[in-house]
């Protein structure tokens, strides 16, 4: 290596620089990933300032709305108002078809649809909002509403609606909302959205299997246990009750919660203090019922930590489960012709228990602060879009119910003969009445800003510990209560 000195740059020095660069790059990689997901928002106004700004914008909008509407018809393609609509990936083809129909009716509005996978939804939207990516109308859910509303990303629809040109006043829609759907869309006393779909977590069973074995449909959890034990003793199947649980999904929590609501459970008092850790509380009792079902009576499948709702539906379809609690729309999937040899055998029953209540929720269309900040024209376009997609008279809400079997948040749709016929086709004869009855008993206790954090602890830690007997039910629920206190004070 005698030529070392003739090199234009000392190799040692060169490599030192390179080495230093590599080290810096490696350590900064984690920061890089973090940065791109949380690019700083432009200075966010305080809540008060946001409200003031929103009110100002709304006032301005109100004065110009009529003018906007009057000139709409004459608007040329070049003057189209563009709005961005974000959705999660459920039947995107139908969403796009609905958008095309909307744009045909409203040639002055151009809608860009952006979809993301359901499991990534909250993360994707947080990234969009914090990086000020354009979003005018978005899907939202009861799980995230409190956070998004508190962050100032979405605005109460009721504050804006009637200041713009609409087919029906906001009260017209609110009065028609199923109470549980409405409370899923309320934050701080204000209604933030119109429902995209609204559903319940419901008890469902294999009707033929029960009747073939001379068993009645159970009406409380003791009877569910008896029916399951009889099916097991007859050798029909080893685990007649299938539990949806994966230790990672809000639905995990809601399946357990809904069953406890059947016995009249309320998780919190009016100040969101825990009630569930009392041994006489229905939630405590149902969790104990599950633990006994898994370990003592062996009527609940022992692989309870890996059961997505689709796995439960497959097992029911394969005849390895006879009863379960799932989101109601899964019954349509289980009864869909060709989905399994047993398709058509599954029925809904009122949630077992003393009160037959259940958990209900709503996913909704939200108007964003960004749309409002863009001015009256954009706000008008976004509200027109929301009314077309989310209004009770909208063809979209009805289409979701009739074609896909999704639940709906408006009471008037129960009286629609097409919807009733579709429910009986998709869910089984007579289902429309049970669905209406069950929906009338659905509960939504509200979802404060800390709810998601607490729910995550429940599904990932406390409930699995109880189900696997790593902790007693009492200790697991105590830890849930302790975590609730922490989450509230964080």
């Amino acid at each position: 290596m005698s030529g070392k000195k003739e090199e234009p740059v000392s190799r040692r020095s060169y490599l030192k620089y390179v080495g230093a660069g590599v080290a810096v790059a490696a350590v900064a990689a984690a920061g890089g990933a973090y940065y791109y997901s949380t690019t700083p928002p432009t200075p966010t106004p305080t809540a008060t300032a946001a409200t003031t700004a929103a009110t100002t914008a709304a006032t301005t909008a109100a004065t110009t709305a009529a003018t906007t509407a009057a000139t709409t018809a004459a608007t040329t393609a070049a003057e189209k108002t563009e709005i961005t609509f974000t959705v999660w990936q459920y039947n995107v083809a139908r969403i796009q078809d609905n958008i095309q129909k909307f744009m045909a009716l409203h040639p002055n509005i151009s809608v860009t649809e952006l979809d993301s996978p359901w499991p990534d939804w909250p993360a994707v939207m947080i990234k969009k909002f914090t990086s000020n990516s354009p979003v005018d109308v978005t899907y939202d859910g009861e799980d995230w509403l409190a956070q998004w509303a508190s962050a100032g990303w979405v605005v109460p629809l009721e504050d804006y609606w009637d200041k713009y040109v609409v087919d029906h006043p906001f009260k017209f829609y609110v009065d028609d909302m199923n109470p549980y759907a409405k409370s899923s869309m309320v934050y701080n006393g204000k209604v933030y959205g119109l429902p995209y779909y609204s559903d319940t977590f419901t008890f469902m069973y294999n009707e033929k299997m029960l009747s073939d074995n001379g068993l009645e449909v159970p009406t409380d959890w003791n009877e569910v246990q008896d029916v399951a034990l009889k099916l097991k003793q007859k050798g029909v199947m080893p685990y007649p009750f299938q539990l949806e649980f994966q230790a990672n999904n809000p639905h995990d929590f809601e399946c357990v919660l809904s069953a406890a609501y059947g016995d009249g459970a309320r998780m919190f008092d009016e100040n969101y203090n825990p009630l569930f850790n009392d041994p006489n509380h229905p939630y405590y009792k149902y969790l104990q019922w599950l633990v006994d079902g898994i370990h003592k009576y062996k009527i609940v499948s022992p692989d309870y930590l890996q059961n997505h709702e689709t796995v439960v539906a497959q097992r029911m379809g394969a005849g390895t489960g006879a009863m379960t609690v799932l989101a109601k729309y899964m019954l349509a999937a289980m009864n869909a012709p060709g989905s399994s040899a047993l398709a058509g055998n599954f029925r809904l029953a009122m949630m077992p228990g003393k009160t037959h209540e259940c958990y209900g929720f709503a996913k909704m269309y939200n108007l964003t602060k960004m749309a409002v900040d863009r001015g009256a024209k954009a706000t008008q376009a976004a509200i027109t879009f929301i009314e077309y997609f989310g209004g009770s008279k909208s063809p979209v809400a009805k289409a979701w119910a009739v074609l896909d079997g999704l639940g709906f948040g408006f009471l008037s749709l129960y009286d629609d003969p097409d919807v009733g016929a579709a429910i009986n086709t998709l869910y089984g004869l007579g289902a429309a009445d049970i669905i209406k009855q069950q929906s009338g008993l659905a509960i939504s206790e509200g979802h404060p800003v800390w709810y998601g954090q607490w729910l995550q602890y429940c599904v990932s830690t406390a409930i699995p510990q109880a189900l696997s007997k790593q902790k007693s039910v009492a200790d697991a629920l105590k830890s849930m209560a302790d975590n609730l206190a922490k989450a509230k004070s964080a």
Partner: protein
Amino acid sequence: MAKETTAIQRQRVGFLLILPALILVAVFTLYPFGYAVYTSLVKNVIYRPETRGEWNGLGNYGSVVGSDYFVPAVTNTIFFSMAATTLTIVIALGVTELLNNKYRGAGLARFLVFIPWAIPPVAAGIIWRQMFQDSGWLNKILGLLGIIHEPVYFLAQGESVLVLLSVIAQVWQQLPFCVILLTAVYQLIPSEVLDSASVDGASGFKLFRRVRFPYLKTAVAILLVFELIISFNTYDLVYTFAGGAWGLVSFYAFAESFSFGNLGNGAALAVVMGLVALALVLLILRFLPPEKMYRYSFLSED
């Protein structure tokens, strides 16, 4: 004097040559990391916009350390990293030894060993999840062999067991890279050294330990640190393997930011992970300074 001036000028030229790369590093990695450090020191909770940007000192760090998730997440991560790294390297050494022997089908064996490298970690996690399901291949094979009569519910065993099982998926995914690197070094071992050792009666494990391993040990040290970094920061493979359940620090950082909405806490965890990565990179550089790496890689001087 003239020589010194020339040397300084040449150093300046060298610096200018790497300047574009340094600018890219500064813009795309250094600044973001600096921003993450800043975010970790201020309040940034999405649902409390009124407090966003307020100085919080080490409050975010205290908050994550005091949470119910921190200790299990760190424990799981340390276990996962240590187990995955150790197993990957031990198996890679054995596989390298096998692949470098001459036998029929050695080419096919090499091809098969390298397949997992072409599979994205997300897909690898899903593949192994399906393998471990009650209706998966593993249960089928165990059933066919008469070892079990009812399916074993591998994936229903709780977080700790899931982390343990995900080590297998991680090892499977990382093995090809280690084998490639070790094979490259393996082939630099002078044949006369191996021949002499054989003449002296060395064979089997003794030949490996006394003759081959001394050549391989620097590469093993690098792999050790490199694999520790990879497994410490793993997210995608374990995420899909565990069906979205979380139990590692990387999951916890994601959850703090995007489930709990606390970007300050998420940034604090990201900074901690970055510092651990920095420590491991410095360890690599201590094992193998850049100039030694150059000689080692291109001149076979080591």
